[in-house]
């Protein structure tokens, strides 16, 4: 159900906003078209399509922001929105001790769109359902311990038209496609799940339907079943305080994600103290804190091809950038917005402000938080590991409000002895302190093993906003890690 906003409505809304006594106003129209398909055990259990659209007016008055939004996009509704945005901005303004000032950004007029070969929203439903049905059939090996075989497809298209009182006019469409399979094996109270290519609805990219085809779910699903069954009989992850572990990208991506929240400048300056929390990486630690050792370089890269956090402009009209956050171990920058970059004395936003939809104000959100690859061949890294474990695919995650103390669980683990993988372990878990952990890395695999993953459901803000971010990494080895925290 594709739809557009007329220029005359955008123009009317901007003029209406500018008619108030304000210092800045922007008008953001956004629409999202989406499709979700779930097949379980060969039967279609979810077949949903959705379209949301609406318009929001954000106004800066007396140093305070006001925002009002509605899905009724008429001139009459816009009159009311502008009035309400001004009213709430005035109400905000009376509390302001440090009025908001915005970092400068060039004015843009641009129309951009994620490159795709096949529009995922225009693919016939029956063709995608057939793939998902086949994937769950291929996952069925007849073992009665298999309780569920799931295959999922998701796609959405976010269309934003942003006009600002500074003259910026951006028309941007971001298209996301994803999918995955998982198998659930149950034997008494022993429950194991194995997912490909990642857990929690699979993997995602800013790409067209061709990305879903490349996932090759039909051929990968038997592996999920085989590993889920083998995990039922595998030994439990042992409890060790100083283990050597290799973390593969389908888990390391979530490590980067959870630690990556700490790079959000609004957290560092306490703007998220009431909900998401703050960050142990306080502003005075920039250019001082050794986040990791010299092997660790981390980027916030909104330009990485196909990354789930890839876009052209953020929702304040700032052009997408690649920002080095950690350079050879040292914290050097944050993800920032036009409102927050000046807090640190920076003249330009890193272009990280995004909103869930028309009805939300932009927040600082991760883009693609990627770990720079090292120079190890992955197989040689395993051969070099005499006594260790390898973990993959996130299943559980928890981290404190400073992004400092974390604990993760994964779907699957492997024992490594004398440079060889010697078997599976079940219910792997590990815990640590963020800078200690990243300082304990001693080997990062090279670019050949680099993989991008997407996290489609990152929550932040009140009212709640779900955002999609990307995380890329190569398998990385860490020393002296506490593992096996979760015991039955």
């Amino acid at each position, binding site marked *: 159900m594709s739809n557009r906003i007329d220029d005359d409505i955008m123009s009317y809304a901007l003029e209406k906003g500018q008619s108030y006594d304000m210092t800045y106003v922007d008008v953001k129209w956004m629409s999202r078209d989406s499709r979700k398909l779930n097949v379980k055990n060969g*039967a279609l259990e979810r*077949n949903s399509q959705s379209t949301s659209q609406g318009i929001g007016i954000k106004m800066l008055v007396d140093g305070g922001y006001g925002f009002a939004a509605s899905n*009724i996009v008429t001139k009459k509704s816009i009159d009311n929105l502008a009035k309400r945005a001004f009213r709430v901005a005035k109400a905000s303004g009376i509390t302001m001790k440090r009025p908001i000032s915005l970092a400068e950004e060039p004015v843009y007029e641009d129309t951009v769109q994620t490159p795709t070969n096949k529009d995922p929203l225009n693919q016939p439903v029956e063709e995608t359902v057939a793939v998902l049905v086949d994937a769950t059939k291929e996952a069925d090996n007849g073992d009665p311990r298999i309780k569920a075989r799931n295959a999922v497809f998701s796609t959405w298209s976010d269309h934003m038209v942003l006009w600002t009182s500074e003259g910026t006019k951006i028309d941007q469409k971001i298209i996301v496609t994803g999918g995955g399979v998982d198998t659930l094996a149950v034997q008494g109270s022993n429950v194991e799940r194995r997912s490909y290519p990642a857990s929690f609805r699979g993997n995602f990219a800013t790409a067209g339907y061709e990305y879903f085809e490349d996932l090759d779910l039909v051929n990968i699903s038997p592996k999920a079943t085989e590993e889920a069954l083998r995990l039922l009989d595998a030994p439990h992850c042992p409890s060790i305080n100083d283990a050597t572990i290799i973390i593969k990208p389908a888990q390391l991506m979530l490590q980067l994600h959870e630690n990556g929240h700490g790079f959000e400048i609004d957290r560092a300056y306490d703007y998220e*103290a009431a909900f998401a929390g703050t960050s142990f990486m306080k502003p005075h630690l920039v250019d001082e804190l050794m986040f990791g050792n010299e092997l660790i370089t981390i980027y916030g890269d909104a330009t990485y091809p196909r990354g789930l956090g890839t876009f052209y402009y953020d929702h304040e009209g700032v052009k997408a950038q690649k920002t080095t956050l950690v350079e050879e171990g040292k914290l050097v920058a944050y993800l920032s917005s036009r409102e927050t970059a000046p807090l640190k004395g920076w003249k330009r936003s890193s272009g990280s402000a995004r909103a869930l939809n028309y009805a939300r*104000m932009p927040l600082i959100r991760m883009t693609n938080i990627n770990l720079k690859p090292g120079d190890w061949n992955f197989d040689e890294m395993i051969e070099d590991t005499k006594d260790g474990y390898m973990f993959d695919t996130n299943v559980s995650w928890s981290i404190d409000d400073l992004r400092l103390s974390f604990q993760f*669980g994964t779907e699957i683990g492997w024992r490594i002895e004398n440079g060889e993988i010697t078997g599976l372990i079940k219910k792997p878990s590990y815990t640590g302190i963020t800078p200690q952990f990243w300082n304990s890395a001693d080997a990062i695999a090279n670019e050949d093993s680099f993989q991008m993953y997407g996290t489609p459901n990152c929550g932040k803000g009140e009212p709640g906003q779900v955002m999609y971010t990307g995380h890329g990494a190569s398998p990385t080895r860490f020393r002296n890690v506490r593992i096996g925290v979760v015991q039955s």
Partner: protein
Amino acid sequence: MSWNPRTIIDSGEFGDPFTILDRDVEMLLHLAKSKGLEAQVTGELRLDSVTRFAVSQVTQHHDLSTLSLQLVLYKDGRRSTASTTLIDHPETLLKQAEDALNGSPPNEFDQGFPSPRPGDSLDLSAKPWTIEERADAVITSVNAAEEVDSGVIVAGTASSTSNYFRIISTEGTDVESASSGNYFKVNSILGPPESRGYGQEETQWRHTMPSFENYAQEATRTAKDTLDLKTFVPGEYEVVLGPRAVTDLMNFIQFGTNPVGFHEGTSYSADKLGDQVFDEKITIRDLPKDASKVFFTRLFDSEGIPTQNRIFVEDGSLKFIPYDSFSAAKYLGDKNEATGNSGGGFFGGAFLGSAILELGDQSIEDQILSIKDGLYVKSFWYNRFTDRRRGGLTGLTRNGLYHIKDGEINGAVRNLRYTESFLRAFEQGNVQSIGNESRMFMFNTVPSVHLSKFRFSSVAHSMS
């Protein structure tokens, strides 16, 4: 006397959205019927007004109104759903759902929409809380917090939400429900960046406005206390969990009870219906129609089935599993076994979102007084399942962890990570007492709980 749910919207401020909503839902049902399709149509109006404050000033102020439509089509075991906020285009929505339906293979379990059932008409509205009143609450909170310590940094949220929906179907369902509520939260931060103290107080409220001063000052006192921390070794401790900590564990008990997890064997509830799973002091009711006791209220679920106040856990025994019509058809063989708990596809199709943990007879002061050496946990943070089947969780303490020594608070303790099962935490014999005063949270209303033992697995370090 029946209540008109449409009065939840202030027509002086928002006009009359119901004319549009009625026109579109009725048009959609008519169009679907004319094509020989079974259909269920939902029209929803939601108003959210949210004031966020941080660094002692308002940082975000949202004012949102959303009118949305959802169309579910069904024919011969095939089903599709289409939803939109694009009003005035019912034909387009129908076509989208119809295209998806035509592309669907039939599902042998699906029996279509539930039969209509009569429901109640009850007032679930809250006192309106205006934008200006919320800004005043922010100023009041900041001033009150600064009376405790002038160096405090104050953050928080003040919000007001109203929701109305109408559901009609070709089965004959035609119901409407509305509710509203308010939320207030205040955080206080003290100390230098590398070594800070944090406090937080929050509550949902409907008619009785909380004392913002008291909440802000309590949060600030906690922040002050937590500037000076003792470090405890991980291990098992006797604990008093404050209401904010109890609500987190309760959420997992409630959302861990869903039909998919129950029947596939991934939930703690699998094979346990009728069994004693918790201490006999634990009785939990789900009260979606009791606006005086719970925040998440509704007269009908998302399929138009009347909600019911009912017992969930009685004296420690698990008494109830929720079902929506799809899971009832799939697992029980009859769509009309649905229980009025449909969440619209979330949480395995059905969930319990309006729970109360029945009160005990101990004040929180009495509970603390009864402990010789233990911990008082004000709240948890970032809780996640580690093992759904065994009720395994991990998370951290936040915004106030205290040492109890000889019945008295004996200083604040550095936050700890717990790795514990709620089955073990609330097992028979481990629950010493339930508090006699509740606080209302999003999905439950709960008092404090005194447990004999609770397992902490590591220390949450700070940078200092």
